[in-house]
């Protein structure tokens, strides 16, 4: 039930090609991630909307296969 970093990055990049993604393996188990995602797509969106966009890009894996992803988001100007 783990999801490797490359897969998380690939899914986010596929939706937000300009995204800068920093991933941290919080527990060293390839399963508890902290992600910081910066993309111009987030401009003008609320935090909730920004996170919903990322969860949507992850295609329903969040809360399932990907059970622990600490997420922060920003647009490049922030």
């Amino acid at each position, binding site marked *: 039930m783990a999801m490797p970093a490359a897969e998380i990055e690939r899914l986010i990049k596929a939706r937000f090609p300009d995204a800068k993604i920093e991933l941290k393996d919080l527990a060293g188990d390839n399963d508890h991630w902290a992600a910081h995602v910066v993309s111009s797509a987030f401009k003008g969106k609320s935090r909730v909307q920004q*996170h*919903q966009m990322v969860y949507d890009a992850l295609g329903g894996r969040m809360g399932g296969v990907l059970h622990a992803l600490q997420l922060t988001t920003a647009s490049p100007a922030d």
Partner: protein
Amino acid sequence: MASDPIQEEIARTIAENDVVLFMKGTKQFPQCGFSATAAKILEHLGVTFKDVNVLEDQAIREGIKAYSNWPTIPQLYIKGEFIGGCDIMREMYAAGELHDLICEKGIPHSHHV
């Protein structure tokens, strides 16, 4: 949506309580680290809130995810508005924004950060 009794129950809970945290476990006994953090943040602010233990009701547990289009628990609602999950609460609390928000919404609280 209106005909779904679970969605109606969720809407009613959120309408009847100014601050609601849907969480795993209770505020006294959280059963997940993320829910514990969320409850602790509200306690730090000195906000009285209603906790809904989703582990006691599978229908609510799934229903709340549909209600907000949000895949995870905990979920915080203030005056009917979905504010976010644990990460957003943490970020807002650290930036002082959560305190500003409860002030704006007129939510009584005992600690000022």
